């Protein structure tokens, strides 16, 4: 594809990014005073001697950098340790939880992007419908109001008041809520970009060449406007991650979000470490994919990355 894009310095910087973030998170997680042994002692399961032995076994007495190296070595072999609460391998727990979260976020992303892009294009193509107000409100709402608020209101209306849908275990409401949130974020910048592109000089040239409106829209306006959506991927991703966590909590869905939260409450380091790392790696991967996508859409970027 774009060989000059995948230059060594670029990839190296991204790897350093993941490594640095994982080290920082590791430090942060371990920096909490008190650890899993406090959890056990509070539950009264172990006596003092057993706790000491447990600490040694878990390596909690080694220095922090030492602990990180041990963890890193194991992680690179696919061994993410065992849950301190349940003893099950963390990798398995993640593997079981991940598909659910991917399903929710994937469906929400698809729904949101399709809805957002459709509304923006319709607003441009049919100004008589006056979709501008709808667009504006949608945008302000999703930027200002956190998804858990919307989620709560929706639950109150649809589950408590109208009793149409149960609260727990269903995917429909979370996907719609998250999807509309994403649509709201995307629709206004896309619409403004479409309007701006329509006024661009090269569109005037296209008209002067005698091209049909259809061709101008498909070949000239749309491709030049989509880059703004790709550029927003960072923001969308942030909302998606927070939103998935929230929806899993509100609607009691099994997934990475609930897994992480329960681990945090139970001070289960290994699980927290692995889960947050996974999320971080995911974010960085998406960043790389986005940058590659932008470069392939806009050839100017391929030559002048960074």
């Amino acid at each position: 594809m774009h060989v000059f894009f995948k230059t060594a310095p670029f990839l190296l910087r991204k790897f350093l990014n993941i490594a640095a973030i994982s080290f920082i998170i590791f430090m942060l997680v371990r920096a909490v005073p008190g650890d899993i042994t406090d959890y056990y002692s509070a539950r009264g399961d172990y006596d003092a001697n057993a706790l000491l032995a447990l600490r040694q076994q878990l390596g909690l007495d080694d220095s922090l950098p030492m602990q990180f190296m041990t963890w890193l070595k194991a992680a690179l072999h696919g061994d993410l340790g065992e849950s301190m609460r349940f003893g099950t391998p963390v990798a398995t727990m993640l593997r079981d939880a991940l598909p659910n979260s991917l399903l929710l976020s994937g469906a929400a992303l698809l729904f949101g992007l399709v809805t957002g892009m459709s509304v923006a294009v319709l607003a441009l193509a049919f100004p008589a419908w006056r979709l501008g107000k709808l667009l504006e409100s949608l945008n302000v709402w999703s930027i200002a109001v956190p998804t858990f608020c919307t989620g709560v209101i929706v639950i109150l209306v649809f589950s408590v008041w109208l009793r149409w849908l149960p609260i727990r275990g269903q995917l429909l409401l979370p996907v719609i809520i998250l999807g509309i949130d994403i649509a709201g974020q995307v629709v206004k910048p896309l619409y403004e970009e479409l309007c701006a592109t329509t006024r661009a000089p090269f569109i005037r040239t296209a008209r002067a060449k005698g091209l049909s409106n259809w061709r101008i829209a498909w070949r000239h306006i749309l491709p030049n406007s989509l880059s703004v959506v790709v550029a927003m991927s960072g923001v969308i991703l942030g909302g998606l991650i927070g939103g998935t966590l929230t929806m899993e909590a509100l609607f009691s869905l099994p997934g990475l979000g609930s897994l992480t939260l329960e681990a945090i409450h139970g001070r289960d380091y290994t699980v927290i470490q692995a889960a947050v790392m996974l999320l971080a790696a995911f974010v960085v991967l998406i960043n790389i994919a986005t940058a590659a996508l932008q470069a392939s859409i806009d050839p100017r970027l391929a030559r002048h990355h960074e």
Partner: protein
Amino acid sequence: MSGPLLSIRDLSICYGDKTVVNGISFDIQPGEVLGVIGESGSGKSLTALAALGLLPDAPQLSGELRYRGEDLLQMAPTCWRRVRGRHIAIVFQDPMTSLNPLMTLGAQILEAMPPDRTRSREERTLHATQLLREVGLPEPSHQLSRYPFELSGGQQQRAMIAMALACDPQLLIADEPTTALDVTTQAQVLTVLRDVQKSRGMAMLFISHDLDAVLAMADRVAVMRHGELLEQGTAQAIFNDPQHAYTRALTTAHKRRLSGARQKNTNNVQGLPLPLVRVNGVSVEYGSGRNRKRVLHDINLQVAAGSTLGIAGESGSGKSTLAKAIMGLVKPATGRIEVCRTDPARPADRKAFARTCQYIFQDTAGSLNPRHRILQALLEAVQIQQGGATLKIGDLTAHCAGLLSDVGLDAELLQRYPHQLSGGQRQRIVIARALAMEPKVLVCDEPVSALDATVRHQILDLIMEIKKKRNLTLIFIGHDLAVMEDIADQLIVMQQGRIVEQGEAHSLFSAPRADYTRELLQASHLSRSTPLTPYAEPCANGARLVKLAHINR
């Protein structure tokens, strides 16, 4: 067919209650070139857009606009697609923004061709290659897969011309096609336009604010101002015998350029003049690390007290960087600069240096803080010039009023904001502010390039007058050699960071030694009837194509 190709009668364009074009009429015969000259706001571009139905924001139109007898203004909106590109094509001013940045040149040219089942894709690609060859782009088949940003400004404009020719139009509209380009590139692109027009026998509507270019290209000329058509006639008639006062002002300014009639500034220094400005072996680099670029290479020059040095060059020549180095705004990587025996980059006292050497900017709007009134802008300079002396505000205001009258402006402008003034007025204020510091050396960086033609020579006269009155040493930077011809005693020609030629101004003009100097000279006097000498078109892989061009009258 008989009769004019394009016939416009009483065309008026109104936006609300604002009339931007008021009842203009003209004809274009088949194969004829009509040049329309006007400054910004004259409505010339809007007239061109009307001929293609491309006017923005739906104005009210009245009058007739007939192409081959059919009134285009009465046509159904869907019929415009028949006309655009097929019969009437247009080349816009700025090729960088007028080409789709995400589509290859080939795709954009192929798209311009009429839908034609009889020709295969290979045949159409071949046609596109031929078009690119016709406009003088080297390696045409390779250019098809290139993107616009990979080409230089001149190459992009050639590509736009090729695209306009894709359907063999009868009328080509060129709306300020070379304004955004470098001076030497302008000459090349205009040659391409003229060649293409002649070989195809097309009619052309050539629009520009540059009288020189219009006279070089057009058979007949129309003069527009504030939406009115003031007069029209053959190019010769307009040039030799202008009827309207405005046309006379334009042609007079132009003729003075040609004949060098401006009062030559006699060097009134007796004996051996001391060099006030010395530049020895100076190089300047920009950027850091991998991106470090040398923009000036080993510059040596001297400016004698009381004389004028002209520095001529195009964009990328480094002339502005040299000016900034002399002002101390950039530090040279090698060599030494001395202005009045001070190093500008490390003066002992910055304020004292400001009182020896001052700077006139090109961008008048940017160099005045939009939030400050003119009085504030001048006071800032005056207060520094006065040093520690505390004067009453009334005296200071009177002083500023005096500065304004020195540059021919009224004192009441002190209370205005920059955006309320015209370009010419702003430039006078910038000059006044520089003079407030009572400098010995004045560096002018393209001070008139951004101004309208009629205002330009007023400002130049002002600068020369001030120079004589205050016995200043002047360093004048620009790209228009015609202007330098009158002003400069010594001349330096720069290209890509190096000095190409330097010496006494009038000997350089009468007998230029370097090829590039010759190119610059020709580019600034397009309408002179002497045939051009061969010039070179640098192409992508470094080899040079030599192309003979004659611009005939």
